[in-house]
């Protein structure tokens, strides 16, 4: 048997069920892997070994006693540190919440506990999920396992890096403008943002409430479906989480696209101010040709308002964030300034000055400005109207097509420090992923080969509530194209790069 830490969840699940592997052994293997590479990758803000061991032992005991178990029982998971975990620090990558432990669990955390999943730790992220590189974490950046001089993407960069480096079996992240899919692409793993309202946001620390959605980051598409089966479903504690039936997403995993119509929106290859790298375009077109060769009907299409993606998103998301983050005022929970204060407003301002990092302040400023008297109509209202036009673009496209296929990111992972000083350049790295959030529709990124040793991602965007078709196309590409995240990891002995995947493969 391969080292247990390399296994996918569906492989491990089979071995656990047949008692060839115990949950405790699987966890210990993952923990050994973490001990080996975490110093380089820094995928986690906090590891939770005591909790994990107790959870793994409980699963092994339940199995020994013959209790029926969930397919994900005993599977080690990395939790983006934006999900509330009762009694365990939940920092959101911020000094503001450094010492805060929530008094309740997020709904998805509660469901994972019931399923017997094993919590390896809380994964690193950009502060309050604002960023595209994890360089905005107050606790230091994560590094891309494929090249330690490069970013893993963000904001769920720790989750993606943990999956890519085998420091967990699966991970969960959140996606407001691409925060699952962009790091998945950069790290060569699978990442899905479900339809808005598919997964409960209760206990997800709010960034932009009309855009945020929780989703899986996994080694392959099968694990993605397996974890979505657990995450999806109505929750009375989140009134935007819709009461719709949850299909068995594993049933969607078929290598068959013969009945499908696939659109390729041309704006995703030529966004003003962004150079979509040749290798990225080529990877997408290879995927398109593959689907065509398997019987899908393919044609180019247009989403005409795509050129307004960045301004629309970077007005709406900060506006919502400026309101959501008003709660961090040093009163109810979290950090409070220790400096002397003149009055309560002074206390608020000093607390927020010390507790928030630069990007969070910048977005609060931008959002407050966009909502302020005299500017609301020109900025927030206008962006919200353009959002409607973008939704109409998608509605029109989905009259003709079942899915759209695009790059996930214009380039592979960029260098650490490369975009920190230029917010616009950083924002532009999300240009391919944002529209799915604005429209509330599902989108997946899956590995599509590599350029110069770095992974590339292809994105498949589907109709609202049609994760099944998105997963089916992704599964077909993975199986027919030989692009599974696992194979990519196995192929990681690359061009003299300092890469964790390489070090481990070489026995280091």
């Amino acid at each position, binding site marked *: 048997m391969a080292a247990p830490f390399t296994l996918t969840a569906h492989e491990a699940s089979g071995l656990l069920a047949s008692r060839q592997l115990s949950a405790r052994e699987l966890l210990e293997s993952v923990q050994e892997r973490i001990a080996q590479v975490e110093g380089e990758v820094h995928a986690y803000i906090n590891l939770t070994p005591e909790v994990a061991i107790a959870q793994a032992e409980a699963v092994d005991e339940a199995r020994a006693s013959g209790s029926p178990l969930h397919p994900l029982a005993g599977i080690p998971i990395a939790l983006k540190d934006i999900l509330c975990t009762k009694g365990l620090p939940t920092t959101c990558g911020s000094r503001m919440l450094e010492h805060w432990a929530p*008094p309740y669990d997020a709904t998805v955390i509660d469901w994972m506990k019931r399923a017997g999943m094993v919590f390896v730790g809380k994964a690193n992220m950009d502060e309050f999920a604002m960023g595209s590189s994890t360089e905005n974490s107050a606790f230091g950046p994560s590094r891309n396992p494929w090249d330690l001089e490069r970013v893993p993407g963000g904001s769920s960069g720790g989750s993606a890096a943990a999956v890519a480096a085998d420091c967990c079996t699966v991970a969960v992240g959140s996606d407001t403008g691409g925060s699952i899919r962009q790091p998945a692409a950069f790290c060569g793993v699978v990442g899905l943002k479900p339809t808005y309202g598919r997964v409960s946001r209760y206990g997800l620390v709010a960034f932009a409430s009309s855009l945020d959605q929780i989703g899986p980051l996994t080694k392959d598409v099968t694990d993605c479906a397996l974890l979505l089966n657990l995450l999806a479903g109505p929750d009375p504690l989140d009134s*935007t989480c819709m009461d719709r039936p949850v299909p068995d997403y594993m049933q969607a995993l078929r290598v068959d696209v013969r009945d499908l119509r696939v659109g390729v929106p041309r704006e995703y290859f030529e966004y003003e101010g962004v150079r979509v790298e040749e290798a990225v375009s080529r990877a997408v077109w290879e995927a398109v040709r593959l689907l065509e060769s398997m019987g899908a009907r393919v044609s180019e299409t247009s989403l005409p308002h795509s050129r307004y993606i960045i301004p629309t998103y970077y007005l709406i998301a900060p506006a919502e964030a400026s309101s959501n983050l008003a709660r961090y005022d040093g009163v*109810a929970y*979290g950090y409070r300034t220790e400096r002397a204060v003149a009055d*309560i407003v002074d206390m608020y301002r000093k607390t927020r000055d010390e507790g928030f990092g630069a990007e969070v302040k910048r977005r609060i400023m931008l959002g407050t400005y966009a909502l302020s008297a005299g500017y609301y109509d020109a900025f927030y209202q206008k962006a919200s*109207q353009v*959002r409607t*036009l973008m939704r109409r673009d998608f509605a029109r496209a989905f009259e003709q097509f079942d899915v759209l296929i695009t790059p996930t990111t214009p380039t592979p992972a960029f260098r650490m420090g490369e975009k920190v000083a230029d917010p*616009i350049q950083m924002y532009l790295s999300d240009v391919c992923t944002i529209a799915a959030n604005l429209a509330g529709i599902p989108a997946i990124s899956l590995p599509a080969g590599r350029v110069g040793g770095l992974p590339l991602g292809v994105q498949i965007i589907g109709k609202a509530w049609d994760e099944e078709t998105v997963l089916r196309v992704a599964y077909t590409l993975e199986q027919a194209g030989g692009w599974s995240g696992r194979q990519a990891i196995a192929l990681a002995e690359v061009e003299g790069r300092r890469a964790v995947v390489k070090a481990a493969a070489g026995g280091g």
Partner: protein
Amino acid sequence: MRINTEEVDHVALLARLELTEEERVRFTEQLNSILEHFQALSEVDTGGVPPTFHVVDATNVLRADEVGPSLSPSQALSGAPDRVDDTFRVPRVVE
């Protein structure tokens, strides 16, 4: 449309942020650059287009008015930086 440092100060007050001199200058510059980039929106004809504030169709999601489990006062206060008994303590707001 350009934003100056006085406006940045005003927005910082609204946002309950205190900026250092260095941040005032940098944010003024960066916000201008961002807003300049965002001027592209003004060219879009949005006449008669309703805004999207939310993508779900649901309105007024209601539940039965029944008491369910909730946090105790001590749990709810467990993360408070300063408290007295079952209350949050803040700097004096009334004289």
